[in-house]
């Protein structure tokens, strides 16, 4: 392990990789700050750039973008009450009231320090947890992996469904359907290609990611006429106030870090949960633990109310890397996009990554720590200037996002069919988003589809076509029991809602 850490430090501190951390954090902060654009869009937009890099540098860049986008989202939550991403909604509860009181600088500083603390504490946890889980996951067999993927898809569907589980499951199935288009990996037989040679290699991951996130998000901005960056809101962008915290504010802020970072990390590890749930849970817990007079301050600019979700959501980002790096199974839409990019590099994350590509495994973990330092250095002095980007009008932003999405796909295939297919998928995704059909289950299923089929094939061949494999190993049974529990909870919630209606 020590050798691995040293190798990781050496790789992460390589000049090129340091530049990648810096570029990733900066780009992530800028993109994440723009209302409506979250980490998934930010990472999807950066994928074409990573194809020209080596796998370590590519993954380091994407990890930086992830962190940066989460932090960028906090900035728009605090300054204009328009969270760029769901995980920073809780940040706006106290961040925006603070900004309205003329303490925007302080709020941004608390967010930056708390993000740094959450990210750093969880990076240390990741350093310890990832290798241990890698060793355990070596004992996993195909049926366990198949069951784990079912669990991951179910959990992501459950948590992203906003109470409409069947919609999320339908999106998961759409993702799986899209994943089966093209040649079957084992028999080379064409499936659902409609004799179109351009579909014989399947639909590219980047096309689906760009269409369902970046391009769809841009179209939604126009379609829904989002007016959150109106002129009245932009007054606060000019007068951020001092960023210095007094002794009492520092004490309150530091007190929230350890427990919320741990909560954030643990929730981030769980498939499907992620930064949004972590931030809400941290906020709720911090409020419940506060004394009565402190409780009154929540929602009106409380330091603790701002520091808690900020440290938790950044900690959850690191936590979400645990299943990706150790099991090769992403637990969220964001890490699913990263997995897709890794597979495009020819790298299969999972327990063997720790042995076969230790440089990638460790450099990503170490770079997270470096990324946190870069974010702090970058954001504290530069935030008053970066924040002006919030004033970029939608009529300039939308065509630019569409342009980068189209070019990102076109530069890989030089094929106009891909552009048309992307426009078609984006238009359908826009309509589905209008009716609250979530996109993360689709992208996760699309990425996992091929792996699911491979593991199901192996399991069925080993058990000679019988489904006995689902209950022949204790690990498989436990994983499936958790899955059934999640489904049961969703069914219970549905009937409860029907009854109350």
């Amino acid at each position, binding site marked *: 392990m020590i050798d691995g850490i040293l190798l990781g430090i050496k790789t992460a501190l390589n000049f090129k990789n340091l530049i990648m951390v810096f570029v990733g954090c900066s780009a992530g902060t800028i993109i994440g700050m723009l209302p409506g654009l979250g980490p998934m869009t930010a990472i999807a937009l950066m994928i074409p750039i990573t194809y*020209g890099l080596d796998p370590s540098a590519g993954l380091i860049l994407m990890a930086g973008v992830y962190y940066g986008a989460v932090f960028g989202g906090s900035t728009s939550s605090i300054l204009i009450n328009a969270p760029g991403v769901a995980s920073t909604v809780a940040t706006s509860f106290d961040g925006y009231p603070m900004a309205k009181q003329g303490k925007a600088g302080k709020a941004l500083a608390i967010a930056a320090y708390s993000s740094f603390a959450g990210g750093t504490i969880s990076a240390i946890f990741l350093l310890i947890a990832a290798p241990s889980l890698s060793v355990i996951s070596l004992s996993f067999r195909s049926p366990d992996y198949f069951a784990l993927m079912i669990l991951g898809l179910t959990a992501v569907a459950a948590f992203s469904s906003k*109470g*409409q589980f*069947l*919609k999320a*499951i*339908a999106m998961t*199935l*759409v993702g*799986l*359907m899209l994943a*089966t288009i093209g040649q*079957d990996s*084992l*028999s080379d*037989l064409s*499936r*659902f290609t409609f004799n179109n040679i351009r579909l014989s290699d399947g639909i590219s991951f980047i096309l689906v990611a760009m269409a369902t996130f970046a391009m769809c998000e841009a*179209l939604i901005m*126009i*379609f*829904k*006429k989002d007016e959150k960056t109106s002129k009245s809101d932009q007054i606060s962008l000019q007068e951020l106030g001092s960023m210095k915290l007094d002794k009492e504010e520092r004490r309150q802020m530091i007190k929230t870090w350890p427990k919320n970072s741990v909560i954030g990390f643990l929730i981030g590890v769980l498939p499907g949960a992620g930064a949004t749930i972590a931030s809400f849970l941290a906020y709720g817990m911090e409020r419940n633990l506060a004394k009565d007079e402190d409780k009154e301050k929540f929602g009106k600019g409380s330091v603790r109310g701002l520091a808690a979700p900020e440290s938790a959501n950044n900690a959850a980002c690191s936590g979400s890397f645990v299943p990706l790096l150790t099991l090769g199974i992403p637990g969220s839409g964001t890490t699913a996009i990263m997995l897709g990019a890794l597979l495009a590099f020819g790298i299969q994350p999972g327990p063997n990554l720790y042995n076969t590509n230790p440089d990638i495994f460790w450099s990503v973990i170490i770079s997270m720590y470096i990324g946190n330092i870069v974010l702090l250095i970058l954001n504290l002095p530069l935030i008053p200037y970066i924040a002006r980007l919030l004033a970029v*009008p*939608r*009529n*300039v932003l*939308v*065509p*630019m996002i*569409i*342009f980068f999405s*189209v*070019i990102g796909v*076109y*530069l890989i295939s*030089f094929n*106009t069919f891909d*552009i*048309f297919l992307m*426009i078609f998928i984006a*238009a359908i995704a*826009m309509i*589905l988003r*209008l*009716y*609250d*059909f979530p996109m993360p289950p689709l992208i996760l299923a699309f990425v996992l589809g091929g792996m*699911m*089929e491979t593991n*199901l*094939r192996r399991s*069925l*061949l080993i*058990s000679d*076509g019988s489904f006995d494999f689902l209950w022949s190993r204790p690990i498989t049974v436990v994983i499936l029991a958790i899955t059934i529990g999640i489904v049961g909870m969703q069914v219970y919630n*549905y009937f409860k*809602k*029907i009854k109350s*209606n």
Partner: protein
Amino acid sequence: MISENKIIFLIFFVISSLYLYGSYNIPIHAFDLNAPFNAATFPKFIGMCGIAISALFLVLPEASKPNVNYKALDFKNTIILLVLMIFYGFFIQTAGFFLSTGFFLLIAFYVLGERRKKVLFFFSFPFVAIFMLILIKGLDIYLRDPFLKMIGLIS
């Protein structure tokens, strides 16, 4: 009246049925026909699940109805933008990257309400020229462009 959610699930039901039909028509190697798993097995599972889920949604009462304010939706500009994107796709190879992208950005800015001449003109053709320069000189990516070739700027 049938809700929009139910209509979407009805479409999904039809798509799943067609998908399942398609999966039964996947050509399978003769030696794979009776194998425990072949190229059609997984799609068959997905198709069946799709039919089951959509049927379930259609049969069960809805927990919450969609709440979309149609009056607040900007159909006109969204459709114009989609058509513009399709035209962009058509012309990117025939007219070349420079002209098609420049015009796409210029028209899209204008359609969405941008009227500042500096923004309209700087972020269209000069922006594309800088972007192309980075692609060609910096990242060594060759971009076929009949227009720039015709005026002798690229080989």
